[in-house]
């Protein structure tokens, strides 16, 4: 695959701009899950939120990359206006390169910390016992480890409002179930390898379920429709089944 341009951003990481299709360019800041790489992803995403270029449709930010979608017809019109005759994808890539060169990743943006109440174990977390026993831990210890962790929302994807969280303690990292469940209840909190996340919709899925939150993560009537956003910091706080039920009732009465 053709590499358009490579340029250094920060002392260690290179950024690669790759044409993804005739309507998208991929900006890759690194290969893995690192808070440092992610800072650059966030910086570009926030820049694009404030300064979308003519013809830009939207972007998808992920762990270490931002995919920028555009309408070639509209970009071409912009190119004609400024008398640029490169192929559209090259024009978009050079525009993005220009933005990246001037990105300010050093300033700390305001970070939101969100508390998510979770009722662990029992019918709410049918895999808690399994997760505990596979690490020679007590269920209470798994809850203790999971709920003292601080998690970064790297991206929202897979389902509306589904957060991909980084920062899970290795002591409770557990592989996916060998056969996925056909229906996972809304609000289920799960573990898959080094990831943890919350299911905002009833879907099939293979994550180990350790608890459930009464909080609605997908809010179609609100803007944005996702309660969580990429870049948020998350903490889980244990609640009792009674508190879970009370919370649910309070929400429905509102």
């Amino acid at each position, binding site marked *: 695959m053709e590499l358009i341009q490579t340029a250094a951003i920060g002392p260690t990481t290179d950024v690669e701009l790759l044409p993804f*299709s005739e309507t998208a360019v991929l900006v890759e800041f690194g290969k*893995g899950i690192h808070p440092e790489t992610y800072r650059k992803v966030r910086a570009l995403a926030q820049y694009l939120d404030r300064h979308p270029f003519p013809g830009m449709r939207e972007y998808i930010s*992920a762990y270490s990359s931002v995919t920028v979608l555009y309408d070639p017809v509209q970009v071409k019109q912009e190119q004609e206006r400024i008398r640029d005759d490169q192929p559209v994808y090259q024009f978009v890539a050079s525009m993005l390169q220009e933005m990246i060169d001037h990105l300010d990743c050093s300033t700390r943006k305001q970070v939101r910390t969100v508390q998510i109440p979770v009722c662990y174990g029992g019918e709410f977390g049918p895999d808690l016992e399994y997760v505990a026993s596979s690490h020679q831990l007590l269920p209470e210890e798994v809850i203790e480890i999971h709920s003292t962790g601080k998690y970064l929302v790297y991206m929202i994807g897979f389902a509306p*409002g589904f957060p991909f969280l980084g920062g899970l303690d290795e002591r409770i990292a557990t592989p996916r179930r060998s056969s996925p469940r056909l229906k996972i209840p809304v609000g289920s909190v799960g573990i898959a390898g080094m990831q943890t996340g919350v299911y905002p919709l009833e879907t099939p899925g293979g994550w180990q379920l350790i608890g459930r939150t009464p909080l609605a993560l997908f809010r179609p009537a609100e803007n944005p429709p996702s309660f969580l956003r990429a870049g948020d910091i998350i903490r889980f706080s244990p609640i009792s089944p009674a508190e879970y039920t009370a919370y649910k009732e309070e929400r429905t009465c509102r």
Partner: protein
Amino acid sequence: MQISVLRPGLLTTLQDLGRYGFQKYGIIVSGGMDLYSLRIANVLVGNDEAEAALEITLMGPSLMLEKGTLFAITGGDLSPKIDGIPVPTWRPVFLRQDSELQFGPCTAGCRSYLAVAGGYGFSPVMGSKSTYLRAAIGGFHGRGLEKGDILPLGNPGKKSRLLICQLENKMTKQPFSTTPWQAKASYITKQDRIRQVRVTRGRHFDYFTEESQSRFFQEAFEITKNSDRMGYRLSGPTMKLKAPLEMVSEGIVLGTVQVPPDGNPIALVADRHSVGGYPKIAQVIMADIPVLAQIKPGEKIQLREVSLEEAENIYLENEKMIQTIKTAIHLQIRG
């Protein structure tokens, strides 16, 4: 004006050009599978091309339409009939009396689009009327049509009213009247042919074995039964990686062909997730998504490589052609 659903068909949903701008919150794009047919259907009844239309899959519904409805059917041929009389497709059709629109056997393609003058009277959700089944939002209560549903229609705009005037004056004995002209039909698949679908190389193409790379373009793939609005699953030569590829999830776009560990490629379509973590072997060009969208499970496709620059030129040419068709239709409407 309204449409009543007498029989819902296999899967009939409201779709427009899609819900853009919310993928960063995990909200998928959705939208029509064959956007060429959807856009033209709307233009044929005097709507903005971005209006929603009913996407009708394989087995069509029976719908009760009111007298005075102006509609157009495009896309695959699902044998639409009114009072037993075949309804011309790719044309505006005006109803002179209350009638039942019945879809019959699918003879070409697999998705029809039914656009009505004024569009369907539903509020957009996050800027789009597209139905997103899994999240149960958009379209008609976020679901496919069911027996007994009543679909309200919007108010026809100026272009639609001009067309209605033209067609009201045409005298025939039929329950409907139509124009002598029609739009360019396209992408209708014949059962016995292998369709060509053009792709550019995906970003992980080079990670696949040389044998896989060459077989990818030389051999045909069959569209399997597990294909749906989310992805077209291809069966044919198995794609093998040179070495296991470690990657984290990243964005995917319409037409991305990714290869899960079983080696069978999946071409992602309208209801794809926003991110995926499998290697990307290819990318179907936008102009050929409507071709893919009209291929039925069991039929075969042959993938043909084009360069990114060619793909871009094809995109721009294709959009120009659609603009030309739109202008031609507008001229016909103005008389």
